[in-house]
């Protein structure tokens, strides 16, 4: 071994570093509970697999809080309270997500928590609200299972994914009625192996069962999340010789799969990746290859409500970029629902806020239908929008008709 002095100084270095770490344990985060603030916990991933959408959702939350605070805050029984955000990045780690939620609810003593992007993180966090009797709203998890455990303090601003599936099928059925597609077409489904994918598949099959004669499903298989190579799966889809290809995937997988789809010269009359399609990252990666893909999403910036325009302007000013897909909108409205509930409850008592959340109605919601209300199981139920990527880099709402900005192009040329 080398010089004894060098050895000793190395040990001290390590020891100092370790002691510093342990000291942080005691410093921790001491919540400063000022008299006129209400603290809200925000647990979202901004790093890791779900970091991108998580980041967007956080921006939506931050913007909403800023707007409320700029207007003086929430008024509770005449007194104004500012909102204070306690944010933790769960790094797309479900175990951390649960831990951090509990931390926010117990030691940080937040009044409510907004968080849980994606089913896994949502499920993990969803056990904490009832345990600590703190309301929890998820702007990013739409799986029905989270809302079917009988939890009392759990709410979500995403419509159920089963509805996404059935809306997709309904849209396709509509095209058949219009004569744009023939009857009896064959559908191939490649679903990601998660609640999201399974719910989506169920939604489509439910609709098909209720409307016989429209479509038949000739292929339905689940694939593993985060796979890098889909050529085998696409091979199977090719062999199924279907007319319509429906998939449900996360953003990364969508891009990879579609790239390989294009490379293998595949073609279907209609193609969708579930809730994915218009994302700018996909446009950047695949260019015109994304044309004609349609998606069922929870919100689009092409919605013509005035509050949507205002939101888009505010968002652009706040973040410097346009809203990507639907992510920030549901987060924004989660905060507004919470603020409205606190106001109506007239108190910062969590049980009262929960009761208020059950009753509150947001009349200028950004989301389709413009009226937002939580259902009896805590989940909202507003209609989905079907958007389609059309040539020229445009993303148009093609369904339902009374909100549509353009006609759907079907079948794919």
């Amino acid at each position, binding site marked *: 071994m080398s010089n004894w002095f060098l050895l*000793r100084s*190395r*040990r001290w*270095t*390590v*020891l100092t*570093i*370790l002691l510093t*770490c*342990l000291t*942080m*344990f005691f410093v*921790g*985060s001491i919540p400063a509970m000022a008299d006129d603030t209400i603290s809200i916990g925000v647990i979202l991933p*901004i*790093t*890791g*697999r779900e970091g991108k959408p998580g980041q967007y959702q956080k921006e939506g939350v931050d913007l909403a809080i800023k707007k409320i605070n700029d207007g003086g805050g929430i008024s509770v029984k005449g007194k104004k309270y500012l909102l204070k955000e306690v944010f*933790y*990045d769960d*790094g*797309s*780690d*479900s*175990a*951390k*997500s*649960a*831990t*951090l939620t*509990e*931390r926010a609810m*117990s*030691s940080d003593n937040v009044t409510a928590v907004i968080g849980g992007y994606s*089913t*896994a993180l949502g*499920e*993990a966090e*969803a*056990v904490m609200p009832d*345990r600590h009797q703190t309301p929890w709203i998820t702007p990013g998890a739409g*799986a029905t*299972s989270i809302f079917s*455990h009988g939890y009392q303090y759990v709410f979500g601003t995403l419509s159920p994914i089963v509805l996404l599936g059935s809306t997709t099928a309904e849209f396709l059925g509509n095209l058949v009625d219009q004569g744009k597609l023939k009857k009896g077409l064959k559908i191939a489904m490649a679903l990601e*192996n*998660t*609640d999201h994918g*399974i719910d989506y598949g169920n939604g489509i099959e439910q609709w098909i069962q209720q409307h016989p004669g429209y479509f038949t499903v000739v292929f339905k298989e*689940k694939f*593993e*999340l*985060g796979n890098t190579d889909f050529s085998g799966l696409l091979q199977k889809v090719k062999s199924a010789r279907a007319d319509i290809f429906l998939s449900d995937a996360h953003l990364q997988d969508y891009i990879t799969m579609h790239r390989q789809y294009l490379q293998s010269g595949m073609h279907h009359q209609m193609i969708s990746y579930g809730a994915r399609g218009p994302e700018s990252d996909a446009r950047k990666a695949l260019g015109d290859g994304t044309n004609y893909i349609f998606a069922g999403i929870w919100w689009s910036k092409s919605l013509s409500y005035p509050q949507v325009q205002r939101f888009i302007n505010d968002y652009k000013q706040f973040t410097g970029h346009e809203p990507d897909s639907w992510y920030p909108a549901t987060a924004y409205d989660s905060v507004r629902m919470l603020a409205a509930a606190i106001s109506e409850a007239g108190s910062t008592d969590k049980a009262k806020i929960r009761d208020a959340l059950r009753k509150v109605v947001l009349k200028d919601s950004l989301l389709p239908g413009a009226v937002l209300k939580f259902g009896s199981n805590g989940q909202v139920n507003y209609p989905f929008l079907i958007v389609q990527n059309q040539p020229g880099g445009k993303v148009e709402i093609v369904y339902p008709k009374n909100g549509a900005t353009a006609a759907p192009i079907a079948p794919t040329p």
Partner: protein
Amino acid sequence: MKTGNAFPRPAVKSILPFVVLLVLLILPAAGLSTNITRLLFTTFVWTITSVAWNLVGGFTGQVSFGFAVFYGLGAYTAGLMINAGRDPCFSFLAAAGMAALASFLVGLPTFRLRGPYFAIATIGVTEAVRVVMSNLKLTGGASGLNIIERRTFHQAEHYYTALMAVALAVAISILISRSRFGLALRAIKQDEDAAASLGVNPYSCKLWVHAIAAALTGVAGAIHARYFPYIDPGGGPGGVFAFQTGISILLMPVIGGIGTVWGPVLGGLVFGIVEEELVVNFPNIHLLLYGILLILIILFEPDGLAGLLRKLFALFRRSRGDSGGQDADQVLWRSGSVEGREL
């Protein structure tokens, strides 16, 4: 023989763990915050896995990347049983049993392999199990498993369960290290063939210590699952079968001091506390800090924290003018290996 003036004095050394245990026992009653109780709970759970892994990796020198399998299986077993209405204690035992059974299934084929082949085989097994569990309808497939317990939540209950479990794990570790079985394991670690020629059956010893370690890890997974009642089978971080989980489990004994008894405990402690604090305080660079910490420890103090402490005590001893004697509790503090820490 113990020299009277070695620091810390032997009497202190043997009493210290009991004192710590006592302190930990009364902490919640003394009004510990929910946050710190949870932190300690998580630390205890990780320490159990750390101590357990060390039995196989540290004492016996078989580096397995596959302990996440037992952790996850324990979690699922307990989860399914609790959902079916069984008593939690019984579920924990079932988890231990299931994990031990799995350890035989894994160990029987893989323990015939040596060195890095064994390590890589364990990686293969973990990934295969993960994929299967993500697809099995019985366990909820990729949606994971939710444990529904129709009881009020008492944090203290979970705390004490974890505390008892970790005390048990450490006790088992001490017992093994002082027994003939422990000696056999160390012999296998140093030179498997030589040990065999002396009458030790390496294959069977490896299988048994693996089973004990797996059982303990399974219990850890079960206890954790009962507290955070959602089990995620995915491959992302937080998933019980994730590659990262397997790495975390073996990281702790290495940080603490592989092959010793108290090293893994220190490692579990540091990991549990540092990990959470890093994430909370430095959300953007916690991976970086964690990686640097690891590198520093590997390069400058490969014997881990235990080695560090030992050298510190030796430093004090020397500065007090005492001639440092060879403590008989070398067994507890030294890794006991003659050469470098081999795989």
